[in-house]
Structures are given as C-alpha cells and as structure tokens.
C-alpha cells in the first residue's frame, strides 16, 4: 500500500469548484500550508471551508479569502482577519459561526459514523434557532448534525506511506477529527518516514482514515502572537 503523492498540487487533482473542505488548524497553528497554497495556485472557487478560524489577512485561509475563492466559512472564531470582516459585513461571504466544541464534535461525529448528537452549547442563544431541543435529566440540549465534507485537509508532524499520522504540540487541535471525517482525506506532513519507523503506541491518526499523504515543503509555521517572558 502506498498513499504517497509527490506534492500538494498532485493530491488535489480532483478538487472541483464549489467543494466543501475541512481544514485543520487552530489560528495558524497546525494548518495545511501547502494544500492552501495549492488551492490558491489552482484558483478553485466557490469553496465552503470548515475550519475553526479563517487565518489572517496574508496567511492561512486568509490567502483564499483575498482571492475570493471562498463562498462560505464555517468557523467558531474569525477575528484577526480584516478582509474577512469586510466581506462578511458587505454580505459578500456566507458565514456560519458555530461553538468551538460543537465544531469539533461535528467533525468527530462525521468520522465516527454518528449522524447527530446533543450538546448544551448554544441553548437559549441564536445558535439554537431551528434546532431540535431535547431535555435530558431536566437540562436542555441542542441536536447538532455531523458535518458532510468532500475533502479533509490536515497537517501532521510525521506520517508514513500508509497514512499513519502523529501531530505535535497544540498543532494537533482539529486535525485528528477532520482526518477521520473527509470523504477524501489528504494529509500533508513535515516529515514522511518509512513504514515501521513510527511506534504504533504513539500514532494519533490510524492510516485507515487517510487517502493521500505527501511531505510538505517550505513550512513557514507562522506565529500569530509571539509572547515571551
């Protein structure tokens, strides 16, 4: 079995306009940099992006916003991106804001074969609009649906040819759930290692979920807020 592709461009050969794509990352930490660049280069448009954040003006998903390739963002927090805010307030961009834990769980549910679940997050708020409310043990919960997405783009620290992945630090964030949830999951890794060199005890994403893997290049791994003592 060999899921290795040469580069980002080759792995997105079948990504079409109007696709729905999950993109891992929290802020700029653990984002699939190479895959985002490949989407920009190929100018695929009308995208629906499921991602916790929308990058910054000149990095991450911000690059796709600048070129107007995004039709809809499904996120929990989109501050720090003025172009995003401008497009949103002008009605040029559709946005679905979702509580972060619900966003994570909707990915997890999709990857676990669970079509819906109940959560207390958003009860009594505008997030609850048009959602089924059910009471368990006297407390209200909202029914939330698993996401459907055509692709999941994830970023890992190390990976092998059969798609086993290991993340590093808080760059893990949304990547493991999204990796399980895409109809097609593409993983970019900082280091592609030979099969057998990853300790099975330490693998975060079993290769069964991953369809394509490649070693990324020129990682910038930009830090949004460098804070030191």
């Amino acid at each position, binding site marked *: 079995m060999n899921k290795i592709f040469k580069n980002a461009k080759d792995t997105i050969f079948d990504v079409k306009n109007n696709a729905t794509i999950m993109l891992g990352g*929290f*802020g*700029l*930490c*653990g984002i699939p940099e190479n895959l985002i660049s490949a989407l920009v280069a190929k100018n695929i448009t009308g995208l629906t992006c499921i991602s*916790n954040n929308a990058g910054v003006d000149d990095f991450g998903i911000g690059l796709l916003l600048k070129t107007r390739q995004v039709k809809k963002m499904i*996120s*929990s*927090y*989109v*501050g*720090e991106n003025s172009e995003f*805010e401008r497009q*949103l*307030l002008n009605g040029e961009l559709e*946005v679905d*804001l979702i*509580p*972060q*834990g*619900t966003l*994570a*769980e909707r*990915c*997890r549910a999709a990857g676990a074969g669970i079509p819906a679940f109940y*959560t*207390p*997050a*958003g*009860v*009594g*708020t*505008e*997030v609850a609009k048009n959602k089924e409310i059910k009471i368990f043990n006297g407390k209200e919960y909202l029914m939330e649906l698993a996401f459907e997405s055509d692709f999941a783009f994830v970023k890992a*620290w190390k990976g092998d040819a059969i798609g086993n992945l290991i993340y*590093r*630090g*808080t*760059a*893990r*964030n*949304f*990547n*493991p*759930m999204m990796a399980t949830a895409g109809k097609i999951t593409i993983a970019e890794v900082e280091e592609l290692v030979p099969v057998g060199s990853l300790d099975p005890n330490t693998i*975060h994403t079993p290769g069964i979920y991953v369809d394509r893997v490649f070693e990324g290049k020129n990682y910038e*791994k*930009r*830090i*949004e*807020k*460098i*804070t*030191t*003592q």
Partner: protein
Amino acid sequence: MGLTKFEIAKRISKELQNGYYVNLGIGIPTLISNYIPDNISVIMQSENGLLGMGPFPNKDNVDSDLINAGKETVTTLDGSSLFSSAESFAMIRRGRVNLTVLGAMEVSQYGDIANWKIPGKMVKGMGGAMDLVASAKNIIVAMMHTNKKGESKLLTKCSLPITGIKCVKKIVTNLAVIDIENEQFILKERAPGVSVGEIIAATEGELLVPDSVPEMDI
C-alpha cells in the same frame, strides 16, 4: 475609578482552590495566572488542546506548535498533556473543569452573558465561550463595570446576542464583587475607595445591597 485590570485579576485569584482545573478566557482572565497563591496548585486548561499550560516561553524556546487559546506562544510543564480539540471540549462538557473565568460585554441579573457579537459591527465569533458557559459549574466574569460610553454592563436583560443563559455566578469588576442569586445581583464587596452609591449608580439591573458591604482585600 476602582481597580485596575491587574487588580481585578488579583481579586479573582483568591477564588482559586488547590487542585482546581481552570480555564481562563482572553483579556483580564489571562492575567490571573500571574497571581496564583504560592500555597496552592492549579492546572490551566487551554481549550485548543492543552492541560497544564505553562508560562510564556523564553525568547530561545518559542515553539510555533505550542500556543494557547489566545494564540499566544506558551510552554508545557511537568505533567502537561496534549490532546485534540474534541477531547478538550469533551472534558469541558463533562464538567471536569472546576472554574471558568471569562470577559463579557454584558451580564444580566439572571446570569445570562453576552460576549461574542455586536450586530452590524463586530463579528468575531464565539470560539469556545458557548461550550464553556453551557457546561462549567463555576463561572466568574471579569470585566469593567461600565462600557466606554459609561453605560452599565450589569443589566436587567442583555441587549446584545446571548452567549449563554443563567450561567454566571459571580462578577468581579473594577468597582465591586457581585454574586448572582435568585435572579438578582447581590453586592458582596466594594473596591477600595468606591462607595456603595457609586456601585448602585453604575448598575442597571436589580441590585441587592446588604447592610454592610466590606471593602475588597487586594
């Protein structure tokens, strides 16, 4: 008038108990980690996926793969653990986080909180705030008592879109410590040099004022 944001953080640090797992929101709450009493041990949770969050790194060990929920570079400590955001919110919904401190634009006397959206003006999103307030057993709000226009942020009813209902138990502002019980604000402590009258004037919602209101010990 009243406390600085650092003093608000310091006052809230007195609510920490040994063994607490604590989630601190962006802004004033983050400052609380500077005032943890020496005789207790608490573990900080960062909802992107870190338990046992350490201080900011030195210049030499900044790691782009290690940030907190405010996207600031942080460190791990002995005993830290790393996990996915799904697992992070699982432990939050499960009620394992003992204390959540967050900022707010408005709080109502019913314990409703608004802190994620100003329609037509600011749309940043709720991040993890809705999950946290819906599940945490103990929620403290850290904020200024009034907004930039001088209007009260402690209201009968929130005017901005709600983040969560009936969840806030305690508010620490630059003027006062206020508890929420039986659908009303209860004045517990006043900031040094601030009179009860000033607090009443700055509070739009129903405020119960006991006969004696002690000054905060900062």
